[in-house]
Each structure stands twice: as structure tokens, then as C-alpha cells.
């Protein structure tokens, strides 16, 4: 009797597993197909385009597409510009967001709750409300068509969301560490630099990754603030490239892939921080 029950259970379990795997595979195909298509198209010859059945693995691989697009679209310059902006802005975010988060998490000062309440309120503020006045501000400062509007604001707090995320993390650290350091005579600046920052590496990595993505992928702000083609970012560069008349789809895909590659690499190397960050952003909401 019990053996038939066991056998029945086993069959049921196997059917369940097969069902789960089939669904997983089908969905994986749906999600992966565009990406695979992106990669495969970027390596195709003209003769392998627009044929049926579609060519998934082009033979021979045409690496030339990357080179043609890279030179025709000035992408070397755009890569450099985007890297400068991304690195400088992310450093600013890490520095000032962690400072503010340390203040909110560990230091007691009058009005702390009030200011933190304001910080939370600005989380809800849709960025488009400040779009036009901020543009006017930067115009009056003479910052238009420079990298300044894309970098300098990052040195003023680095975004409410990152402060919030770091503060949540700082609060999970045992307070005894800080108290002991204070008793030993360390100033808050030393505590911040020598104790907090090294301990906060996981959370800082999360902020660094998100900051990197935010600046690397940004389109609207460069579009508004940058005019000269020699100052374009990758996103603006790809758009410009798409409007050129003699561009082939293979080259367009090659450049789309190229600007995605750093993001995917960062994702794979720092996956654990990545997921952690998304989760932190979600759970505390």
C-alpha cells in the first residue's frame, strides 16, 4: 500500500518538475531571443540579413561591423566622455551619500528626524517637475554644453534613494563598534573614514553599481545639456548614429551591444550586490 502511495508521489513530483522546467525554458527563450538576436545580428554579413530561416550563428563571423560602426560613429570619443562622466559622478555619489547616511544613521543632532522626513518625501518627487527650472539654473550658471550638469549635482548628496539605502545598512551595524571608537578618542571623521567605510563595502558596492548604471544609461539629461557632438555620451551617440542615412542594422546592433557590454560585465561580476540592492529597494518600501 505504502509503496503505491510512494510511487504515486514520485510520478506526481516528476510531472511537476517537467512542467516547471518546460515553463522555465519557454520563458527563457522568450527573454533571451532578443538578446541573442542582438548579438548574432551584430556579427552578420549583408547576405545573412533578411533571410528565412533566420541565421542565428553567422558563418563567418563578421567582426568588421564593430570596427566600421566604431569609426563611422565616433564611438571611441563617446566611450571616453561617458566613462569620465560616469566615474566622476559615481565617486561624488558614493562620497556625499555615505556622508549624509552616516549623519542620519549614527549622529544625533536637532532636527534629524525632520530632515530625514524631507529626504523621504523627495524620494517620491518625480524628476520631471524640476526639469525645466534646473535647465534654467544651469543655463544661468553657464554650464550648458559642458559635463558639469551631469557630474556636479552628484557631489551634493548623490540622490535621496542612495542615502536612504546606505542609512538602512549603517543602522544594521552593531553600535558598540562606534561607541568603543568614540571612547578611544576617535573623532567622527575618523570613525567615518576608518571604521564605517570599510565595514560598508557591500552597501557601497550596491550604490556604485546603481550609480554606474544610472549615469551610463542616462539619456534625457545629456540630451538637454549637451549640444556639441564632440561632447556626446554613448546614448546620444547611438541616437545620432541611428539617424545617419547609410547605417546598416548590423552596425546599429553592434554599437547597441557594445554599450550594453560594460553593464552586463558589471552585472556578472557584482551580481550578489546587484540583487541585494534591488531587494533592499523593494523590501523597505
Amino acid at each position, binding site marked *: 500500500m505504502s509503496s503505491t502511495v510512494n510511487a504515486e508521489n514520485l510520478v506526481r513530483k516528476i510531472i511537476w518538475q517537467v512542467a516547471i522546467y518546460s515553463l522555465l525554458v519557454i520563458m527563457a527563450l522568450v527573454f533571451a531571443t532578443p538578446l541573442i538576436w542582438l548579438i548574432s545580428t551584430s556579427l552578420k554579413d549583408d547576405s545573412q540579413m*533578411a533571410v528565412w530561416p533566420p541565421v542565428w550563428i553567422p558563418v563567418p563571423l563578421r567582426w568588421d561591423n564593430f570596427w566600421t560602426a566604431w569609426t563611422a560613429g565616433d564611438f571611441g570619443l563617446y566611450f571616453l566622455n561617458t566613462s569620465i562622466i560616469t566615474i566622476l559622478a559615481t565617486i561624488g555619489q558614493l562620497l*556625499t551619500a555615505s556622508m549624509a547616511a552616516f549623519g542620519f544613521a549614527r549622529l544625533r543632532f536637532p532636527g534629524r528626524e525632520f530632515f530625514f522626513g524631507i529626504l523621504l518625501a523627495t524620494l517620491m*518627487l518625480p524628476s520631471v517637475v524640476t526639469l525645466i527650472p534646473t535647465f534654467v539654473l544651469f543655463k544661468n550658471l553657464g554650464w550648458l554644453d559642458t559635463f558639469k550638469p551631469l557630474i556636479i549635482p552628484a557631489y551634493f548628496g548623490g540622490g535621496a534613494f542612495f542615502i536612504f539605502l546606505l542609512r538602512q545598512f549603517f543602522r544594521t551595524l552593531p553600535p558598540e563598534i562606534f561607541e568603543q571608537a568614540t571612547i578611544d578618542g576617535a573623532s567622527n571623521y575618523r570613525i567615518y573614514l576608518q571604521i564605517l567605510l570599510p565595514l560598508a563595502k557591500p552597501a557601497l558596492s550596491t550604490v556604485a553599481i546603481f550609480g554606474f548604471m544610472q549615469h551610463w544609461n542616462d539619456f534625457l539629461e545629456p540630451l538637454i545639456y549637451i549640444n556639441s557632438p564632440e561632447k556626446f555620451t554613448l*546614448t546620444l551617440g547611438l541616437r545620432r548614429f541611428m539617424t545617419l542615412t547609410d547605417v546598416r542594422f548590423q552596425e546599429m546592433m553592434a554599437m547597441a551591444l557594445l554599450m550594453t557590454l560594460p553593464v552586463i560585465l558589471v552585472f556578472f561580476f557584482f551580481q550578489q550586490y546587484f540583487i541585494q540592492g534591488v531587494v533592499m529597494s523593494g523590501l523597505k518600501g
Partner: protein
Amino acid sequence: MNTTDKNTLKLLPTGPVPSNRRARNIWSSRVRRNEALDGYIFILPWLLGLLIFVLGPFVAGLYYSFTEYDGLTPPQWVGLQNYQRVLFDDPQFWLAVYNTVWYVGASVLPGVVFGLLLALLLNQKVRGITIFRTLFYMPSIVPAVASVALFIYILHDRFGLLNETLFQVFKVIGPNWLTSPNWSKPALVLWSLWGIGSGMIIYLAGLQGVPEVLYEAAALDGAGSLRRFWSITLPMISPTIFFVLILGIIGSFQIFTPVFLLGGSNYGQAAAGPMDSLLFWVVYIYNQGFFYFRMGYASALSWLLFVILMLLTLIQFRLARRWVYYEDDVTR
């Protein structure tokens, strides 16, 4: 020093009717005063940023919305004229509202539901599940500009993979996704659904936060898997669903990038898709502000969007009381 102490006292959240002396004592000690000073120094960059880049522009935008302003000559006060024109004399604006609401409705709801279903699937304990998680999540980190370029190719009327497959396999002639005013919004919905991974990961975190004991207890009581989903999973992750929903609505209300890329490549400057079928709210703000240099008018449009988004969020918080379950409620 004395005056700052008095000012800070007002902001201090003390107990019922604090005696002046007691409150003074807290901050009058040198150590505490230094700590407070350090606190202000540490939040100073953020505080300055808040004033210069957030609150300042926020208030300035409100002011501009009551003016006529081309960005060059000083703003001219016109009172409520911009708002009157937007609401009663601008069919383009109402077209933008219609398109935006259409897109929000068509992309957010499927996003929330499919995202949850995918998360449930990914929450199964089978071997190799992390590979699938990575695969499903990856599209959502592709830069929007790159993924739009990719979808412009995939959804191309003649050379696109989708229409080619529809024709060759199903003998159906696919729609003109990007050139027909009827299909441009569905095309954008397809694009947005490809990136539902971020919502899915948030759900997954929510699902993994549901205590296992609840399921075990329910199983002992003889509850089937469907019952367990309705009575345990859904209530337990309802705060997460709510969060994803709010994020989704606020985000998709501000859709801009794909339209601009499509417009730039196919329809020329300041156009918004075939026959303005992709004229969304933020696209309209951009066109008014940065193409026609009507900064005052664009500010009024921005403030209207802000008010609508705040109202929507407020309404959702109200409605949430009926269907979102917070664990603290029980203990309260």
C-alpha cells in the same frame, strides 16, 4: 551659541511639555554639541543639494508656470493663463493625456501580473534556477537606448524578426508596428514587458520573505497549493505588489526615451510617433520647453503632472488599506 541653541530646541522632538532646563541639558553638554555639529557637517552636501537642485527648482517651476518665459528674456507674469490654456484650449495636451493613460494602463497591469507569475515560477526549488533568474533579469539592465534600438530592428515592418516569423510560420502579415498609429503604443508595451525583470526580482525577494512555517502549518491543515497561494502568499506579499504597482505607475507616466529615439530616427524633430500616437505627457513637456522654448507653458505641464501623480499615489495609499496586508496590523 545661545541663539542657535534656542532655534534647535524648537525642532527637537522631546516628550510632553519639556522643561526648558532639561532639554537644554541634552544639547548643552560639549560632547553632544560637537556631535550635533558633526551631524550637520556630514549632511551638509545633501542639504545644499536639496536647496539648490531640488527645492529651489521645485518652487521656481511653480513660479515659471504662471509666466510666459522663453528662457532668454525675463519671465512675464501671466497669472493662470498657462493652466487655462492647457486645460481648456489645447487638444494636443488632451491627446498626450490619452496616450499616456493608454500606455500606463496597458503596460503596468500586465507588468505587475506577469512579473508576479514569473517570480512564482522562479521561486520553485529546482536545480539550475539561478541561471533562469539571471536570464529573466538580464533584459531589464540593458540600457534603454540600446534596447529601443534592438526593438526598432525586431519590430521593423519588413525586416523585423517578429513580422518575418509571423509571416513565415503563421502566414499572417504582421502589423506596421512602428509606422502605424494604431500599433505604435502596443509596440512600446512589448518593449516595456521585455524589461519586467526588475519588478520580478522585487517580488522574488518578497516571496522568499514569507515564513516557511506558514506553508507547513497550512499543509498540515490540508490546504491545497492554490489555497495556500490565495490565503498565504498573496496577502503576505501584498505590500510588495503595492510597491511595484506604485513604482510602475510613476515610472511609466514619465515615459520619454523610446519615443524620442523612434521620433529621431523616423519622423523628424519634435514629432512623437506616427500621427502623434506617441505624444506622451513628458514628450509634450520636452517639445514645449526645449523645442518651442515655451518654458512657462512646459512648467505648467510639469506641475500638472506632478499634482496628478501625487493624487494617484494618495488614492492608491487609500485603496491599499483594503487589500494590502501589513504584519504590524495584527499586533496593533
